């Protein structure tokens, strides 16, 4: 582990720094707020000769992702970044990328989807890609956004995985906030991510056909391959975070957990809200309230067994979603958690809190109120309602 200086950096720039250190061969992107700074910095790195890569500004996000697919098939390490409408426009290629087993990393700076037009934080943009066969990781702070970018490349390129990986970070709250960051050295980065090797790479001397058609007699088998690869991403993940811990001193897991072990009630969430909840939980613990917080780092594949294990002894959960499944049972994380609890025979009350849509602020006192609500659910053995839209003026 080489000595490195602690720096102050905003989330988007931290991601760009990690991508540079990962020595990508190609960046293809289309600007969209609030991820633009990521590709802006990368274009500067390329222009200044600090990064030896092709930088392509595509005519749309659909093309940007298509370019990444092609370049990755040629054996390149590729990166793109988008959010919101841009991700929606990529949708078709998102599914092609995972099923064609394309290793690549995409940063998604989570922003709400039109309409009404809004550029602020929400997880509603990635949810339509939830079931696509991509690995989806979520950062809780700027340091995580940086670290997870390396972990994402490593996971993505493993021969037994070969899948695209997204790293999600909250719009503005992380993308545009300056936080403290301890980078890894260029040497450690190079050791962790040696040049990419790819057996199926396009090669004039040994032709191979990618993107073929499969009829009803074989289609399900190819999808079964995808299903297993996504599950393998989950089983090899501990090896990768362990290796990353050796060079960085920072140990990642399927989720961040704060005092969940002996908690009566746990609040679960994706993204930066973990930090707010953690601070509120620390204060409530001092007042004797046995509450804990879990913030998922890996959302897909869903770490079912690990979460179920972490919830042993917990008497109630509140699951917070910064997105909503309209007409369904609640937010996407909530339905996953409830399903996991049910099929593992854990019959504890679980409530869904939908919050922060379109970037609505979520403050410390609100985090405290939700933790208290969870604790009350544990005491009462139930909640008043399944789903609550938090802070809506009604």
């Amino acid at each position: 582990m080489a000595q490195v200086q602690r720096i102050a950096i905003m989330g988007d720039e931290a991601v760009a720094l990690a991508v540079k250190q990962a020595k990508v061969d190609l960046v293809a992107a289309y600007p969209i707020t609030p991820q633009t700074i990521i590709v802006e910095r990368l274009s500067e790195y390329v222009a200044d000769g600090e990064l030896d890569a092709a930088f392509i500004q595509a005519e749309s996000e659909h093309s940007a992702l298509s370019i990444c697919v092609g370049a990755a098939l040629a054996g390149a390490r590729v990166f793109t970044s988008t959010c919101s409408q841009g991700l929606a426009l990529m949708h078709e290629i998102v599914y092609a990328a995972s099923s064609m087993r394309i290793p690549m990393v995409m940063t998604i700076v989570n922003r709400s989807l039109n309409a009404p037009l809004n550029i602020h934080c929400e997880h509603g943009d990635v949810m339509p890609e939830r079931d696509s066969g991509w690995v989806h990781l979520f950062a809780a702070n700027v340091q995580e956004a940086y670290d997870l970018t390396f972990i994402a490349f490593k996971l993505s390129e493993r021969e037994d995985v070969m899948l695209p990986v997204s790293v999600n970070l909250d719009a503005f709250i992380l993308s545009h906030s300056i936080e403290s960051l301890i980078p890894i050295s260029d040497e450690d980065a190079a050791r962790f991510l040696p040049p990419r090797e790819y057996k199926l790479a396009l090669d004039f001397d040994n032709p191979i056909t990618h993107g073929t058609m499969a009829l009803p007699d074989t289609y399900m088998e190819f999808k079964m391959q995808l299903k297993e690869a996504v599950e393998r991403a989950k089983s090899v993940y501990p090896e990768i975070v362990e290796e990353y811990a050796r060079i960085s001193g920072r140990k990642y897991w399927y989720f961040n957990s704060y005092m969940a072990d002996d908690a009566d009630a746990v609040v679960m969430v994706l993204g930066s809200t973990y930090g707010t909840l953690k601070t509120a939980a620390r204060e409530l613990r001092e007042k004797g309230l046995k509450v804990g917080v879990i913030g998922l780092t890996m959302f897909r594949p869903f770490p079912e067994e690990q979460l179920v294990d972490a919830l042993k002894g917990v008497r109630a959960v509140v699951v917070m979603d910064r997105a909503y499944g309209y007409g369904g049972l609640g937010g996407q994380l909530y339905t996953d958690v409830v399903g996991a609890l049910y099929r593992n025979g854990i019959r504890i009350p679980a409530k869904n809190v939908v919050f922060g849509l379109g970037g609505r602020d979520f403050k410390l006192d609100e985090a405290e109120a939700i933790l208290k609500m969870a604790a009350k659910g544990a005491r009462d053995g139930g909640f008043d309602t399944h789903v609550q839209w938090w802070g809506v003026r009604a």
Partner: protein
Amino acid sequence: MSARKLVDDVLKGRFTYKTLPIAAAIPNPPTSLENKTGMWRVQEPVIDQSKCIKCLLCWTYCPDASIKRRDDDGVEVDYDYCKGCGICMTVCPVKAISMREV
């Protein structure tokens, strides 16, 4: 894996999701030559050579390149790949082509 064996295995159902090439990426292309897609057809064209005037319209119009052109500009059906669409029969100006059930 050779293209021949891959096509054979798939057609005969001798595969599992583990034996198929990963992500449907096909090594040793082109498997299209091995995959005799003519088996799809329910009707097939027959050319009455005595009527044929060697105009090559059928050769031009066949969407599957399944009319073979001989050196003398006479034509034959390539039954390995002909899908039985009947376009050649429709375009033939002297009605030299008829369709029969297979």
